[in-house]
């Protein structure tokens, strides 16, 4: 007999978002909406027009004396290094510029227009140098050295740069004996892919306002996923204490990773040091947004995989050359994260992976939704389909045979925790009607279906922590404070749900403190990695339970009862024994009077909690093996049905199916919303997106020629399937979904295109031109 688990209200319920009302009325504040008064200065940045050049001379004198200009700074003024995993960049270039857009000087003025005009008065003399525009070339001995001092940079102990080269990280997997396994393979597929750079395209561009007071204390307002990381990085760069840096981060209008870590905010802070006491606002234009903050790295991936005649995967040999760009302070970890997940969600006994992060003279690669997994799966899942066909197996059956299961020893030697991946695969296949080909909608169209699996673990240091606070108010309402940011994914809402569920109060009685403020919000490592539901959630639950314990202990003492018989339900403390009850209001602030007017007990209830995983181990630098590489994996599957127009090559995604194992859907509707949004964003990257870089110069730096999906491109239907195989240390079993929702979409569409026209499209974007010329080359069309 199975016991059905019950969950406390409102866990698992589709409660309305806490932030919806203010967002639909225009009241929600974003960083550029904050009013600063007439003292506000505006900054603009002078940027290198060369992808690689020595800076011979900068003359800012004319800019400095331009009326309305209050400060002009260059790299001379800021010698410090900064970086999250590897400290390889200065705030402003010193001695050389390494990408088109690299900040060379900054101006603060009384209006944005004056600052902009002052830029033209700054004279910079460059000596262009040969550039590196391909990561395989960049990794070769023939390439010019972009960071000669790589060996001197501070670096975290799980990143392995190769000084004297352009390789800033080399991650290896050596599991079993891949070289020796090929002879046993009945079929082998070997392919290479050039996955282009893309950009996050948040609808809200980056914006930061910085103020440095006369004592040197820093205040930074900004659109940020990572206020605490920014506090830490700024403090390090400036040589001051994090306690003297305050970062205030209101709602973020889309992040997807580009507003994690520290990018353009450092420029605002640096400029602000020259105009003590005055706030300085720096906004990126949409054009600058495309290439001067973070982009998603390009990838040249080489896959070789083989299976036996029954279709069991025997070996994989992967080589990844990540086009990290000019600075790889963040990107080095993408190299690592992709390395330790390099088999994709499959059980493969023999694996050899070399994942290289390579410096190039391209825009700076940083975290983007999926953190290496979309780029990797784009090629890997096409190879899997090709291998299945080669061995004569259906793509779904092949994946069913090989997909990772509970208890498998995965690529790093870790044992796979309970996962519902097989269930995701089966349900996605069923929902798309796998095996059934529907007729095309017109004679000049071809229909096809494709499927792809994925997995991803939160990529973060082993000791990334969360903390939370729960304050009780005099009317019994609850105020939750977290450090996890609301980017639209719904983190504030689930924080409220989890506090309500763990404490025993109605959801409507919970408020979430915002905006985030490092002076008053509890610490959160960063809002990245799809880690908040799980990690921040655990901290919120711990804080709520802490508050609950204080309340129950107080009432138990007042009632002379055993605390084990008491509970908080629907905002009241109740005794299961005596059936007494008392509402939370008043007692949670003012306490409970002792009998006979003998005083008071209790006091204002403040619950606190934190969570930090303690079990992630290091990995052997030569083999990438270790007992526990990551905290957990979220797994899933997507299936799509497409139509290819034979006259134009246009690929129309008719419908999609997404099935993910989220452990426990705290708010099922918001989980579905992530699955839908991720699908469409993934589809957008599959069909439209790519930064067209020519000799380091971006050719499509505006919406005119960097296209993203519009309302007309969204499919007719996206079916979302929630699978729940509980995460042992997740709140009510929950784990993340935010990134995973876009990881398999590119290969699912690629595999569907193959089903439709019998040609594999390779690297995205699968533009009409790409598909038409592919068909033309193959003689399918005129």
């Amino acid at each position, binding site marked *: 007999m199975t016991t059905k688990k019950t969950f406390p209200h409102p866990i698992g319920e589709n409660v*309305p*978002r806490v*932030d*919806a*009302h*203010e*967002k*639909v*009325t*225009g*009241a*929600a*504040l*974003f960083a*550029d*909406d904050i*009013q600063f008064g007439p003292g506000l200065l505006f900054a603009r940045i002078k940027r290198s027009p060369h992808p690689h050049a020595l800076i011979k001379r900068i003359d800012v004198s004319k800019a400095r004396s331009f009326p309305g200009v209050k400060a002009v700074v260059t790299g001379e003024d800021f010698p410090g290094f900064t970086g999250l995993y590897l400290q390889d960049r200065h705030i402003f270039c010193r001695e050389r510029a390494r990408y088109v857009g690299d900040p060379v000087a900054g101006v603060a003025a009384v209006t944005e227009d004056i600052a902009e005009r002052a830029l033209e008065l700054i004279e910079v003399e460059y000596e262009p140098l040969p550039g590196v525009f391909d990561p395989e070339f960049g990794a070769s001995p023939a390439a010019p050295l972009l960071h000669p001092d790589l060996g001197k940079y501070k670096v975290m102990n799980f990143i392995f740069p190769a000084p004297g080269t352009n390789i800033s990280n080399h991650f290896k997997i050596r599991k079993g004996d891949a070289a020796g396994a090929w002879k046993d393979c009945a079929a082998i597929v070997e392919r290479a892919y050039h996955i282009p750079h893309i950009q*996050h*395209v*948040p*609808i*809200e*561009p980056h914006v930061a306002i910085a103020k440095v007071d006369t004592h040197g204390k820093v205040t930074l307002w900004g659109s940020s996923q990572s206020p605490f990381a920014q506090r830490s990085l700024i403090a390090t760069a400036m040589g001051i204490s994090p306690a003297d840096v305050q970062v205030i981060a209101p*709602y*973020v*209008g*889309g*992040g*997807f990773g580009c507003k994690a870590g520290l990018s353009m905010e450092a420029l605002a802070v640096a400029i602000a040091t020259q105009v003590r006491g005055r706030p300085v606002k720096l906004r990126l*234009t*949409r054009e600058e947004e495309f290439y001067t903050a973070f982009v998603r790295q390009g990838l040249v991936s080489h896959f070789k995989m083989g299976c036996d005649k029954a279709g069991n995967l025997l070996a994989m040999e992967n080589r990844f050359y990540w086009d990290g760009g000019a600075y790889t302070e963040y990107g080095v970890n993408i190299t690592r994260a992709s390395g330790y997940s390099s088999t994709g969600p499959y059980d493969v006994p023999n694996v050899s992976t070399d994942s290289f992060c390579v410096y190039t003279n391209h825009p700076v690669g940083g975290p983007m939704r999926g953190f290496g997994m979309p780029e990797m799966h784009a090629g890997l899942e096409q190879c899997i389909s090709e291998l299945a066909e080669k061995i004569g197996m259906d793509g779904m059956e092949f994946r069913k045979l090989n997909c990772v299961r509970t208890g498998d020893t995965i690529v790093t030697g870790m044992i796979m925790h309970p996962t519902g991946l097989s269930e995701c695969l089966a349900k996605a296949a069923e929902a798309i009607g796998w095996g059934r080909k529907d007729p095309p909608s017109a004679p000049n169209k071809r229909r096809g279906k494709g499927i792809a699996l994925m997995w991803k673990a939160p990529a973060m240091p082993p000791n990334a922590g969360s903390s939370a606070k729960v304050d009780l108010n005099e009317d019994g309402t609850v105020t939750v404070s977290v450090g996890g940011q609301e*980017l*639209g*994914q*719904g983190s504030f809402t689930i924080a409220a749900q989890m506090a309500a569920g763990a404490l025993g109060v109605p959801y409507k009685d919970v408020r979430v403190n915002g905006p985030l403020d490092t002076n008053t919000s509890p610490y959160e490592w960063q809002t990245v990695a799809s880690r908040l539901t799980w990690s921040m959630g655990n901290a919120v639950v711990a804080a709520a339970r802490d508050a609950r314990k204080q309340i129950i202990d107080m009432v138990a003492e007042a009632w002379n009862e055993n605390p084990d018989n008491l509970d908080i339900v629907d905002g009241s403390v109740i005794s299961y024994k005596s059936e007494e009850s008392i509402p939370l209001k008043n007692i949670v602030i003012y306490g409970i009077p002792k009998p006979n007017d003998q005083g008071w007990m209790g006091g204002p209830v403040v619950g606190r909690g934190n969570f930090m995983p303690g079990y992630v181990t290091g990995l052997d630098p030569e083999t990438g093996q270790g007992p526990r590489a990551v905290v957990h994996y979220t797994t899933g599957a997507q299936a799509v049905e497409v139509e290819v127009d034979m006259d134009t090559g246009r690929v129309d995604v008719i419908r999609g199916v997404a099935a993910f194992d989220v452990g426990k859907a705290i708010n099922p*509707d*918001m989980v*579905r*919303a992530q699955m*839908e*949004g*991720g*699908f*469409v*964003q993934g589809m957008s990257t599959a069909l439209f997106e790519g930064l067209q870089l020519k000799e380091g110069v971006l050719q499509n730096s*505006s*919406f*005119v020629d960097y296209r*993203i*999906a*519009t*309302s*007309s491109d*969204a*499919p007719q*239907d*996206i079916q979302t399937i929630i699978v729940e195989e509980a995460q042992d240390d997740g709140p009510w079993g929950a784990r993340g979904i935010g990134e995973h929702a876009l990881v398999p979409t590119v290969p699912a569409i690629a595999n569907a295109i193959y089903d439709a026209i019998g040609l594999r499209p390779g690297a995205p974007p699968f533009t009409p031109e790409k598909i038409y010329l592919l068909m033309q080359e193959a003689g399918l069309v005129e």
Partner: protein
Amino acid sequence: MTIHRITLSINGSSEQVDVSSNLTLLQMLREKLALTGTKNGCMAGECGACTVMLNGEPVNSCMVLAVECDGAEVLTVEGLAKDSVLDPIQESIIDQGGVQCGFCTPGILISARALLDRKPNPSEDDIREALVGNLCRCTGYLRIIEAVQEASERQLQTASGD
């Protein structure tokens, strides 16, 4: 550069503003009137985050000069709700889960409101076409489309006195 004194109605309220020639309607709303609900996403007429109604028709306010709006009527997201009662399109977008980061939302609401004004019973294709100039990166659009359909049903029901 010439400064122009203009008078116009914004969300039903009369305003007099001094604007330089090169100030866009978007900048005037955000910087001179602190109506920050309307957003700046691209300054190029591509993303739609700046959409407002000008004399009853949606425009990208980043592509309109403030000085051109002398004597005009402007409606922004702040003017959609009447006396704290949300417009049906605002209610529906919340109900359908069509709000995530919220940055595209003001522009979307104005475009949707304008569509329902001119076509109270739009088809799904009508909705997709009407919203094509409002980019959203978070939701994938389907819930927004459903929200417009639901709002249209709400309105038609109210109109027929149900």
